[in-house]
């Protein structure tokens, strides 16, 4: 059982099976061919013997010649009796041969070839007989020649045992050679596996050496290396994300501890203490915001889905978000235009949260007097929301990472507001919760950021 878990063992077994099949076919064909050749020889031998005597019998003139014929038959019968002659007749003078009683009455007709079983022999005799009707010189009689098939059968048996022995030997040999070839052929794979064993998580830049590998394996090793590349990127992102979280939490914590320690190190008046508590509370509220958002993102990335999806007009939901942001829009002197509409099953508060974050982001990056365009469309089983605002072009290398947690295009730019860089990450999480995706584009002075939600339900159509 265990041998079949190794490729070499399995291939050796398959080689053996193939050899068994081919050699057996070959053996059976040869055996058939040999049998027919032997049978032809046997019949030829029979016919030669028959014709020799038949010739004499046909020229029989005098009844006295029977003694000479019997003597001739005695002479041509070999000592091992593998050829035997019989003459059957009512006339005792003509009759010839041993064990006549057994043979009498077997053969009818004028001339025939057949088999004849004679006591004391395992193999039947191949016989040919001819009937001579009575005439003026002699009574009717039947002449029979029997050739023993035992030698032929013996040759066939010998051939068969040699065949079986050589087929089994051949199969074993093929299996052995197959095993050795496979072992040798799989050498590079074993080297590769030993090399993969040495890869360590602490050395992320380590890769498999593909140069000396055969083509089949170098493909595998290259795709494996590709996976390692992606893993390294993900790992680095995770590390930088951890660093970001730590940084985002460390700053307010440092402030809280220091602020409290300073306050407690001297006698303070009540207003001073109130001031400290208020400052602390601001930091704590900030921390609570980050923790809640991180919890939300963690739940989304663990595959949490909205509890209740209701099919509704996305434009109506966008209008609600605009209504909420109305004061901010007026303050920034920015106008929003909503184009199109789409129906999709969504959880309203999640959807509005995503749209609010997108609009808030657009307001922050729009110059005063600008117009933000929200476009809603449906197609390909998705409903899409895109928010476009005029603003400086975002370089392509930043676009794909806009939705990363804590990612900032320009670290110095997000000084304003309480935004901690999770707004667009939340948009991505909301999209994922609705089996959708996010997209971003930036060209010709317009930045478009948006997301899609799954829209496959046809029930309310």
């Amino acid at each position, binding site marked *: 059982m265990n041998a079949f878990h190794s490729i070499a063992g399995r291939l050796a077994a398959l080689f053996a099976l193939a050899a068994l099949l081919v050699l057996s076919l070959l053996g059976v064909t040869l055996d058939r061919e040999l049998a027919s050749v032997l049978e032809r020889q046997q019949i030829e031998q029979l016919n030669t013997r028959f014709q020799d005597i038949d010739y004499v019998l046909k020229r029989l003139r005098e009844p006295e010649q029977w003694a000479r014929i019997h003597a001739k038959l005695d002479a041509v019968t070999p000592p091992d009796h593998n050829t035997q002659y019989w003459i059957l007749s009512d006339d005792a003078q003509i009759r010839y041969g041993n064990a006549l009683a057994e043979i009498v009455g077997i053969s009818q007709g004028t001339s025939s070839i057949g088999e004849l079983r004679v006591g004391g022999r395992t193999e039947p005799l191949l016989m040919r007989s001819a009937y001579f009707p009575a005439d003026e010189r002699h009574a009717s009689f039947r002449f029979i020649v029997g050739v023993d098939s035992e030698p032929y059968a013996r040759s066939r048996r010998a051939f068969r045992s040699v065949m079986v022995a050589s087929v089994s030997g051949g199969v074993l040999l093929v299996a052995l050679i197959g095993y050795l070839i496979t072992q040798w052929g799989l050498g590079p794979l074993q080297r590769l596996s030993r090399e993969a064993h040495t890869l360590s998580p602490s050395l992320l830049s380590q890769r498999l050496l593909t140069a000396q590998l055969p083509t089949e394996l170098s493909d595998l090793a290259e795709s494996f290396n590709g996976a390692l590349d992606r893993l390294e990127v993900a790992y680095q992102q995770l590390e930088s994300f951890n660093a970001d979280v730590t940084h985002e939490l460390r700053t307010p914590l440092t402030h809280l501890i220091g602020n409290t320690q300073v306050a407690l190190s001297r006698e303070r008046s009540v207003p001073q203490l109130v001031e400290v508590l208020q400052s602390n509370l601001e930091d704590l509220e900030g921390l609570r915001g980050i923790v809640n958002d991180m919890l939300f993102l963690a739940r989304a990335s663990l595959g949490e889905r909205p509890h209740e999806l209701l099919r509704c007009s996305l434009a109506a939901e966008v209008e609600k978000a605009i209504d*909420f942001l109305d004061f901010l829009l007026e*303050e920034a002197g920015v106008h929003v235009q909503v184009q199109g509409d789409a129906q999709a099953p969504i959880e309203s*508060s999640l959807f509005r949260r995503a749209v*609010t974050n997108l609009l808030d982001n657009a307001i922050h990056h729009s110059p005063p007097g600008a117009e933000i365009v929200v476009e809603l469309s449906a197609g390909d089983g998705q409903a899409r929301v895109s928010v476009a605002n005029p603003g400086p072009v975002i370089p392509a290398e930043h676009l794909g990472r806009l939705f990363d947690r804590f990612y900032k295009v320009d670290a110095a730019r997000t000084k304003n507001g309480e935004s901690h860089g999770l707004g667009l990450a939340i948009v991505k999480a909301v999209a994922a919760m609705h089996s959708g995706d996010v997209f971003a584009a930036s060209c010709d002075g317009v930045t478009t950021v948006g997301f899609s939600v799954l829209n496959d339900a046809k029930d309310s159509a």
Partner: protein
Amino acid sequence: MKVLVVEDDLKIADYLDKGLTEQGCSVDLADDGHDGLHLAMEVDYDVIVLDQMLPGLDGLALLKSLRAVKDTPVIMLTARDRIEDRVKGLRAGADDYLVKPFSFLELLARLQALTRRDRRGRKQEATELQVGDLVIDLLARKAFRDGSRIDLTAKEFALLTVLARHQGQILSKTVIAEMVWDVNFDTSANVVEVAIKRLRAKIDSPFKTGLLHTVRGMGYVLEERPGP
């Protein structure tokens, strides 16, 4: 208002006791599920604050046993914010739900909403609110200060009404966003700040005394304070 707090974390139980007592509630504490259930069965509370993870008897089991007998309003506290937990809690008969870390102001607003929901039938809804010399006519949807009409947008009026209904009580930005815009999610957009600034420009700036105050780190309160 009689409140039962069932919470095993001593620090949280302690500040809830202090905070709610100062708000004029009479507070009973229980630090495990069995004591909590016993008290909830024996005494008629106006509202129960129930932690979901408790030693002895778990919050959901306590709620189920309680609901078999009484329908005292219950607000659940939980550290886990999974939707299914929330659904389980609400299905077991909780009237509201708060996820830790929660703010005290939010808890207070929800407790009041729960008990008010209870009393609404008995008390006639006011048609006019007054804070100092500010008068709000809820039927005509108009506001006056010192006798002169203040021109407000619909949203500004809604914000003012919410603040006036809770006059003297500090309302956090989250609570205001929920009450005025029905926004029940966290957002970094500082809408409430901007809205307060605009409302203040209309109801306070033209007058000598301010009514709309900012409590740093906490939120906003509408009240008449003695002048300096």
